[in-house]
């Protein structure tokens, strides 16, 4: 394992702890889908996106379209010092920078106010088109949920992305296979997403979304004239035994006792 992967693994554990702590204290939030996208966010923000600072006007753009899972981003920003440590206690409280869904004026690396599912995908596609029309080569990344992919606008946007050959645009789908009321197979089967995206005209990669090496490799993939989709298979509630693969933890916060168990499990996993 490369040296930085060890660092990232530690970071992932700390982020997962913070996700659970902020949801538990707020007694609300969406831990399941936040825990599943931790590695994706780390690779994106630590390696893939080009920026000097969040305020850098020329930086790459990022839309957290599955915005309910934003505790993962907040946890990263807390770990990296973009938020003050005590701000973790303000999550979902009035006046906070840590809104229920992120707000671009309040949250670093937030280029769109998501929350209404599917719209971030459409906006990201428009962003890539806008930059292309300005001959601005910067990249646009959008993190999409698999449940979110039920939304028709996702596929309207995907058609436009391929039609306009937006090769500076990358969709990352967090395929944790579980949505609010059940598994994606039960609620609305998505079929073979790789085939669907390829049929539209995307370059598509299907990988393990918890594996840093596979993520890094997938992000390096590029084909001129084609938008790119990374289909990242993950585990909903990753790292907490009683949450993994369980839709009950899509939008429920752990109580103090449950939190203690989860933190203990995560701590133990960091020594593996």
């Amino acid at each position, binding site marked *: 394992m490369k040296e930085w992967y060890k660092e990232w693994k530690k970071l992932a554990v700390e982020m997962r702890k913070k996700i659970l702590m902020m949801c538990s204290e707020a007694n609300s939030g969406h831990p399941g889908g936040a825990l599943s996208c931790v590695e994706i966010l780390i690779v994106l923000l630590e390696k893939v996106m080009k920026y000097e600072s969040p305020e850098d006007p020329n930086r790459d*753009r990022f839309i957290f379209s599955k915005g309910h899972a934003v505790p993962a981003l907040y946890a990263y920003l807390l770990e990296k010092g973009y938020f003050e440590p005590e701000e973790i206690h303000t999550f979902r409280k009035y006046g906070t920078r840590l809104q229920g869904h992120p707000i*671009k004026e309040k949250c670093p690396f937030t*280029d*769109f*106010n998501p*929350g*209404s599912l*599917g*719209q971030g*995908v*459409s*906006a*990201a*596609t*428009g*962003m*890539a*088109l*806008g*930059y292309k*029309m*300005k001959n*601005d080569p910067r990249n646009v990344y959008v993190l999409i949920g698999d449940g979110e992919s039920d939304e*028709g*606008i996702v596929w*309207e*946007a995907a*058609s*436009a992305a391929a*039609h306009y050959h937006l090769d500076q645009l990358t969709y990352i789908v967090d395929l944790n296979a579980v949505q609010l009321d059940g598994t994606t197979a039960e609620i609305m089967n998505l079929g073979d997403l790789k085939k669907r995206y390829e049929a539209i005209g995307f370059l598509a990669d299907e990988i393990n979304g918890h594996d840093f090496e596979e993520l890094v490799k997938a992000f390096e993939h590029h084909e001129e004239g084609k938008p790119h989709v990374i289909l990242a298979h993950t585990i909903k509630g990753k790292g907490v035994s009683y949450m993994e693969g369980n839709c009950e933890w899509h939008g429920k916060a752990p109580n103090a006792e449950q939190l203690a168990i989860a933190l203990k499990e995560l701590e133990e996993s960091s020594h593996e």
Partner: protein
Amino acid sequence: MSEKKLLATRAGYGQGLLDLAEEHDDFVVLEGDLGHATGSLAFGKKYPERYIEAGIAEQNEVGMASGIAYTGWVPFVTSFAIFTAGRACEIVRNAVGFNHMNVKLVGSHSGVTPAADGGTHMCVEDIAWMKAIPEMVVLSPCDYNQTRLLVKKMYEYDGFVYMRTSREPVAQITTMEDDIEIGKAQILREGNDLTIASTGIMTTFVMEAAEILAKEGIECAVLNYHTVKPLDETTLLEHVRKTGNLLTVEEHNVHGGFTESCAGALLGKVGKIRFDHVAVEDRFGETGNRLSLFPVFGLDTESIVRKARNLVRKEE
């Protein structure tokens, strides 16, 4: 002032885009495969590099416009009112409104005049849908010239705006020299007997009605509300206080439309007044031609004249 030639406000939108392109090159036009009908195609032919075909996918058309605006372009989003304001309503609310993006939305074929197409296309709800969105500006120009002028005004305005246009050619009652501004009613006629506040192409029929009424000795003040939101309450109150009555006229459902905006503005600010409206009375459209349907909906000059006469009658 008036010209004989009939022109549609949708054509005014198309010409307005060409006018704007003479001065600015930082705006783009998105179209939902209706460029031949909405008036946008003239711009698309002349400036294909800034004309974005979004296909028959109005939700994504609006969502992409939000992202395009974030990159610094000023996007104009064009489709039929029923789709821009209706189908994509929640995308307008969240991707544009809640994101505070500088997007200009245009819905043509509003009201009952796309009658040949039938009820699915006759949008009598767009003002209600759009004005309910916080901070949204809602424009509803009366004729071709005014639409041309408002394209420039909406470009200059920093924020999101919705403008409804119409497929129906109507008389020209305003000029390109008019000094109009968003949020300020245009006084087309002064009179002490009755205040008529009107929006959209109905204003052209209101002006006809005012001529007829003048011959009967009834002098009407005609207030043209090219801006439904924010509503110019000052001009409305000034006139209603003077005449003691008000007739509102719109090609929109009475629920949620311009009439309710005016009623809300007057509430608690004037004493007892006589108030009536010419609007769509809570019904869907159906196929027909405009001339046959306007009397059916009570949206013709004769209906305006009749209701005006009733309002100025002295007896209760």
